């Protein structure tokens, strides 16, 4: 396989070992059951945990640190972590102030977090991110998938928890940010799970999948690759139609690389998206262009928009110091 691997089954283990060592100033890796937690916890703070299948780095382990998560629970590649892992992470970082689980909307994640919280003994709450407007079906029954918008929730609520927000406040804020957030992706090719011989999403050369999920789930439309402007226009139209932001609302515009698309192209997409928002008289208040919720080496990108209110905007700007996201001095 065209990958740097020893035994494919060990990919997540070795990668997390390297990750924990490279960022030993910020995080600590527990094994059996496996989770990543902050090196030093802040007593009395509401603890934030998230988790899900691996292969979306830096999400979530890369967001453990000051101003974001207290623990992250990585499953196998593209596979929900187990109940046991989530419970162990909760017990390690949960405080009397409470524990908030930020869950992406996938059946496995939902069930495992739910069962872990049934077993967890402290005050806790959960919220589910469902920001992906790209899929063809699903929303009526299972809701929408949780994708890159999760990073926005983790950043903003992470800052709020750091400032002393209480559990119910954190949960409500997380719900508000999630409700104000929409994402949609596009892939120009597939990605390969280390232990699989075949790619997830088999796209003929020159075709793209509009509305793709972060595991290569099919989207709403497949067709020949068109210009960056035309692609962005299709994504933005869908996002904006669903979101209906008011003209004065400050928007966060987040271009997320899916892994195989270099920064040069991510910035081309950003430029196209910003031009569209300008033309509609909408305001880009904050921007981020980076592969924060990736899909292994998938060539593709997603666009996330969040309609920020004043509180969210201030919390977005608050310092964050994690392996995968840093700012504020």
């Amino acid at each position, binding site marked *: 396989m065209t990958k740097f691997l020893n035994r494919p089954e060990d990919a997540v283990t070795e990668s997390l070992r390297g990750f924990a060592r490279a960022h030993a100033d910020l995080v600590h890796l527990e094994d059996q*059951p496996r989770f990543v937690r902050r090196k030093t916890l802040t007593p009395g703070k509401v603890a934030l945990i998230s988790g899900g*299948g691996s292969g979306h780095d830096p999400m979530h382990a890369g967001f453990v640190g000051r101003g974001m998560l207290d623990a992250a629970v990585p*499953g*196998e*590649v*593209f*596979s*929900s*972590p*187990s*109940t*046991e*892992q989530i*419970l162990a992470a909760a017990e390690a970082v949960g405080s009397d102030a409470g524990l908030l689980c930020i869950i992406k909307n*996938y*059946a*496995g994640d939902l*069930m*495992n977090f739910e*069962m872990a919280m049934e077993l967890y003994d402290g005050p806790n709450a959960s919220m589910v991110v469902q920001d992906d407007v790209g*899929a*063809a*079906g*699903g929303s*009526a*029954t*299972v809701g929408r*998938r949780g994708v890159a918008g999760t990073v926005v929730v983790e950043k903003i609520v992470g800052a709020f928890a750091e400032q002393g927000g209480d559990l119910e406040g954190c949960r409500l804020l997380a719900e508000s940010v999630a409700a104000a957030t929409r994402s949609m992706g596009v892939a120009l090719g597939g990605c390969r*799970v280390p*232990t*699989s*011989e*075949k790619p*997830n*999403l088999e796209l003929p050369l020159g075709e793209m999948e509009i509305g*793709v*999920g972060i*595991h*290569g*789930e*099919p989207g*709403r439309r497949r067709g020949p690759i068109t210009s960056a402007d035309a692609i962005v226009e299709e994504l933005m139209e869908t996002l904006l139609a669903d979101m209906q932001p008011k003209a004065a609302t400050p928007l966060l515009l987040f271009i997320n690389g899916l892994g195989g698309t270099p920064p040069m192209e991510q910035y081309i997409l950003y430029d196209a998206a910003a031009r569209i928002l300008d033309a509609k008289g909408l305001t880009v208040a904050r921007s981020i262009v980076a592969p924060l919720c990736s899909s292994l080496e998938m060539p593709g990108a997603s666009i996330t928009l969040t309609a920020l209110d004043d509180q969210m905007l201030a919390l977005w700007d608050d310092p964050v110091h994690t392996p995968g996201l840093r700012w504020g001095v």
Partner: protein
Amino acid sequence: MTTTQDATQATALAILDALCARLIEAEAELNALDRAVGDGDHGHNLARAANALLAIRDELAPLSVPEMLKRAGKAVVMSVGGASGPLYGTLLLEQGKGLPEGEASRADWARAFTLAVEGVARRGKSAEGEKTMLDVLGPAARAFEGAVDQDFASALAALSQAAVDGHLHCRGLHASRGRAAYVGERSVGQDDPGATTAMICVQLVAAKLAEGAA
């Protein structure tokens, strides 16, 4: 001297071994099915479940059958991950919980199976017709309960046939649960990975029990 109790335990362990072997063997094939809905881990998850069970086999061996099922279910629930970990774990756990301690009749077994499938539906917040493992498990449980008064071979045949029919019917459904729900119309005509493993497992259990009964 072998008691009925021993025989039942031995059968349960033999079925456990066969199931684990079969699931480990089917890993790649099941991953491929799951890849069609943009995922690809169903085979890994089930193989992980099988390995988790084999890892505690010595611990399971001396247990009564209901306790064995509960312990196995807990291990799968706790350690496997994915959607199928909690779901198949719940199936085992609830099957164990549904059996009386001591001697269990065939009717007890059938009843417990139905209760276990209901437990899965609760855990998954789902129902038959949504193109999941429930579309195999539900009909299988009903068929077994309905035929349990007949001779055992016929009851097992009905169980097995219902699983196959359920799997076939499931293929034509439009997914509204699990990862496949996002595929929309494109899911129609494709096999659901969880329904496929459910059929494989039901058939294997029926065949093993039939061997024992013959």
